[in-house]
């Protein structure tokens, strides 16, 4: 009996000791934001950390130099860290109570981090608030609060291989503006060697057809599920029609990882991708000649999807005032145009549009898309539903669009209940 009690005491001691050690780490303090506050924001002299998910050296360098410029002019130290897995590193930061002060944040992560209180909703405090495109502001609004400043954005366009286009006897006048025209040119461009149109078999591409029919998975504020509407059915039916005609193929079915790869390798004459394709084309497939057009209009007019990230600021940041200043600088016209030059995305503010268009005449269709682009759902858990939707879209050619959409309607309704 005595042995057992001794064991118990020893075990309890070990656990208590280890617990004490974890407490020493001070990792789990409830509220670590020190310093005085002004207009609800924390203020201190602590240096800022900026956590980004970089697409490559060009992006890292551009952000690095922009942050360094701000640092030397404001006198507040700031360091940029490149995350290898942004979502995971953000989560770790938030749970330890010592997150990065400023960071990239994607639309599908916004709801998760906003709902657990990790994010500072600073949108309304931005000096340049009214300059952002309204649809982008919508993408970063959660529960009626504008959380963070859109960093930049991209829209989808139709990318055309000009050599194949000419070989099929097509001219500039044939660039499709309706679904019927798209069907015709896709058929003409389909040869034994390549398919007319190759796209990624996922919502982030096929969804554009849904918006052209006037639908989307959720309404603009992501507060209502609108998946099973006739508009969405029409959009998917059109894609199914092209798939079954053999003039549209998913990138993976032609042996490519994504639409850009299929396009660059010459496996497809057209693809639907966003601004990022220009980077891939110049580095991986510099010899392929291409042109960019706006996506064809559907029964409800023009439609495309937009993708964006924002500059998040942590609720636990000890120096939110400086962080806000930094974000205002990073979203200014001059900085955004510099970013755009370095790694391609479009400025998220209207005042930079004209200059951007003159600098990038070839990419104008992407920016034109901003007028009618729709965002992807941002409700908490919607990323899961989109993944599920994607998994079903893989077999769209053989399944019923109505059934697929009905299932997603149920899943989305569960999120907004």
């Amino acid at each position, binding site marked *: 009996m005595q042995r057992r009690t001794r064991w118990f005491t020893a075990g309890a001691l070990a656990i208590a000791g280890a617990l004490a050690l974890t407490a020493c780490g001070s990792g789990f303090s409830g509220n670590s934001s020190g310093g005085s506050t002004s207009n609800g924001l924390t203020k201190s002299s602590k240096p800022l950390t900026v956590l980004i998910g970089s697409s490559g050296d060009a992006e890292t360098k551009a952000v690095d130099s922009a942050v360094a410029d701000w640092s030397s002019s404001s006198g507040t130290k700031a360091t940029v860290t490149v995350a290898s897995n942004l979502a995971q590193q953000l*989560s770790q930061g938030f749970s330890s109570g010592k997150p990065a002060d400023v960071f990239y944040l994607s639309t599908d992560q916004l709801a*998760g981090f906003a709902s*657990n209180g990790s994010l500072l909703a600073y949108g309304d405090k931005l000096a340049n608030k009214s300059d952002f495109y309204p649809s982008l502001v919508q993408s970063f609004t959660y529960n009626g609060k504008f959380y963070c400043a859109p960093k930049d954005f991209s829209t989808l366009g139709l990318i055309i291989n000009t050599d194949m286009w000419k070989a099929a006897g097509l001219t500039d006048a044939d660039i499709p503006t309706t679904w019927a025209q798209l069907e015709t040119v896709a058929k003409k461009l389909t040869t034994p060697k390549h398919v007319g149109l190759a796209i990624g078999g996922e919502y982030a591409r096929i969804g554009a057809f849904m918006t052209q029919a006037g639908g989307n998975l959720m309404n603009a504020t992501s507060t209502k599920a609108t998946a099973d509407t006739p508009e969405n059915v029409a959009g998917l039916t059109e894609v199914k029609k092209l798939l079954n005609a053999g003039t549209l193929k998913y990138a993976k079915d032609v042996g490519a990882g994504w639409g850009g790869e299929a396009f660059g390798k010459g496996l497809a004459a057209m693809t639907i991708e966003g601004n990022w394709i220009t980077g891939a084309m110049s580095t991986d497939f510099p010899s392929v000649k291409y042109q960019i057009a706006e996506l064809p209009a559907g029964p409800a007019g023009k439609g495309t999807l937009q993708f964006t990230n924002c500059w998040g600021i942590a609720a636990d940041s000890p120096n939110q005032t400086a962080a806000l200043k930094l974000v205002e600088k990073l979203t200014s016209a001059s900085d955004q145009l510099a970013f755009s030059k370095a790694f391609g995305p479009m400025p998220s503010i209207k005042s930079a549009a004209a200059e951007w268009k003159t600098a990038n005449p070839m990419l104008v269709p992407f920016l034109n898309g901003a007028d009618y682009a729709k965002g992807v759902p941002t409700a908490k858990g919607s990323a899961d539903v989109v*993944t599920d939707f994607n998994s079903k879209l893989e077999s769209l050619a*053989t399944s019923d669009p109505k059934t697929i959409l009905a299932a997603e309607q149920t899943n989305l309704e569960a999120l907004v209940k």
Partner: protein
Amino acid sequence: MTTYSRQPRRGGLRRGEAASGWLFTAPMIILLGLFLVIPVLMALWVSFSDWGGRGSPFSGSVNFVGFKNYSTLLSGGGLAEQDFGTALKNNAWYVVLVVPLQTALALFLAVMVNRQILRGRGFFRTAFYFPSVTSSVAITVLWLFLFNSTGAVNKALSYLGVVGPNWFNDPAGIFHFGATSGPAFLEKSTALGVPLWDWIGGPSVAMFALILLAVFTTSGTFMLLFVAALQNLGGDIQEAAMMDGATGWQRFWRVTLPQLRPTLFTVLTLGLIGCWQVFDQIYTGTQGGPAKTTMTPAYLSYTSSFVNQSWGQGAAIAFILFVIIVFFTLFQRWVLRERAVSKRRMRQYTVATTAATSTPVAPAMAAGAAADTGEENER
């Protein structure tokens, strides 16, 4: 208790021993406690809480929610249940195929490289063990290239006149044999939100490529365990069996294999645990796709926590997985337990031994061999 009571309780020469014992084990106890026991207990708490991923899970704002996270996964009726069901289905097929295949292959390789006549045994042993020491990430990337739709495997298949599948992009279940929809009663009835038709469909083509990967990498490790065990077996029993006229095949099944039972248990258990925890290959290779057919509970636990901020559900998945692994390990122990020779087999020996007037016969011997000795003794 009696053995210990001989020692003096306290005092005497051995007074300080207990203290120094604790002192010497303390570093390990603290390390294990800090990095294993406490995190596990914390995760257990998280699985019963509504912790959202910000600040301490023990802070005042975190509430106890009972079995809510578990019931969402097991009977919630929503996407979470479907995903969990799909992940379980995928992983169950993975286990069902990988564990027997890798064990059989490992045993086969071990027997082969253990043979005295084989030249260059060292070379083969190293070659077979090589995949196990290579990092799983590197091998996964290699696999992605090999099983590309235009990769080496499909090229090789094309020489045989077979059009290979688009391996890592093919979500079709291999036991569906190309059928896209099943009988209505299988499509309609579901378990854990997944139609029975999908449950019986087997692993997807993509998962099958990962199964081949697992067999390829782990059979080398287990071969080593079997080789070690084989080298510990005494040659005398083999010789005795040979003298009794047992064929090579009989010697393997009736003499060698029964002696390998402890190793077999180790290999099966390690294989089972490893298979239920498969994560690296999914994370680096497929991320759960195509059509979620390579999603496993371990990967789902990661994504629900880190991507969706549903930390409670992520932790709950981990603990359900824990229960599954413990259950199957115990089940396997029960199946592989030492059993008395069955009555049916016993009868074979009794017939032989009564004729032989109480000559002791090695139970491992084949019945035929036993009968022979019996006749010899009669003469």
